[in-house]
């Protein structure tokens, strides 16, 4: 699985200064290409941060990605103190890292998570479904904190996660493959 995820590390490193320009490009190889099936290169453009997010991928982007970009764009627009308790604005690096992470871990059959801002300016992804509670806080690229609980078998873990997303990918697989009626 790490070989599938490794290409994501090649995405452009963007600073907040880059984002200020409102034009952002991500280059994302598709999974289909990584397993050896030839795909034509596609380019998708999304409105984002008062500019555009251009995603270059080999093969089509997953259908949920547009929804993810829209959700992240909404978080990026939040003013300071959006929670009435002094919350900071959401950091652009956390937002971009979240988009990259989702492309790295989500499957087409994965339920879409709640995309939640934190008062520390990071993005929290939450899945509470199919008997699983999975929360993933994205602080930046390779700076992830995740916690997982499966009420069916009592599995629990909490971890700081760096470049190796294996544990997270396995948890997403478990969630995705579970029958939604068997919570």
């Amino acid at each position, binding site marked *: 699985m790490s070989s599938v995820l490794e290409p994501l590390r090649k995405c452009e490193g963007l600073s907040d200064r880059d984002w200020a320009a409102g034009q952002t490009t991500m280059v994302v190889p598709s999974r289909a290409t990584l397993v050896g099936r030839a795909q034509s290169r596609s380019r998708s453009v999304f409105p984002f941060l008062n500019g555009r997010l251009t995603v270059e991928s080999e093969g089509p982007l997953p259908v949920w990605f547009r929804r993810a970009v829209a959700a992240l764009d909404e978080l990026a627009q939040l003013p300071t103190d959006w929670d*009435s308790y002094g919350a900071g604005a959401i950091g652009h690096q956390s937002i971009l890292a979240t988009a990259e992470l989702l492309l790295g871990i989500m499957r087409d059959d994965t339920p879409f998570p709640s995309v939640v801002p934190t*008062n520390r300016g990071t993005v929290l992804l939450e899945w509470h479904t199919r008997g699983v509670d999975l929360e993933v806080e994205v602080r930046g690229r390779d700076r992830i904190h995740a*916690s997982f609980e499966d*009420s069916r078998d009592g599995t629990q873990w909490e971890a700081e996660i760096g470049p190796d997303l294996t544990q997270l990918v396995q948890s997403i697989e478990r969630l995705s493959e579970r029958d939604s009626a068997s919570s």
Partner: protein
Amino acid sequence: MSQALYKDDASIANEASLWRRIPPRHFVRDDNLGRFRPSSAAFDDPPNGSPMSVVLADLVIASGRVATDMLLGHEGFALASITAAIARSNQQGVARDPLPNEPAHAIEFGRKTKSVKKALANGSEWVVEPPGHSA
């Protein structure tokens, strides 16, 4: 002020309800529970390092106000409640911290790890439900 300098106030009973505003961005769907509930992110200290704010429900009510008064000026917000017992069972302390504009203001102090924030969220109940998110 360092949170280590605060002391738990024993005059706040374990049964005391602590109310906290929940912003719309922190309403999350929990299909395991079959309802919307606050995100764990709603129960964190602010980024300036001060402790998490709450109000003491008893003092609010004693002043002739009601729960919805806590949401004035905060359209779309909901109000959640946790008991002091839930806070204390998660290594948090509770102390009065009256403010000029809110005499019922209190603080819940202590290190808020991910598991603590989740426990507070899971132990919370709606006092004023999220508008349009009742099911």
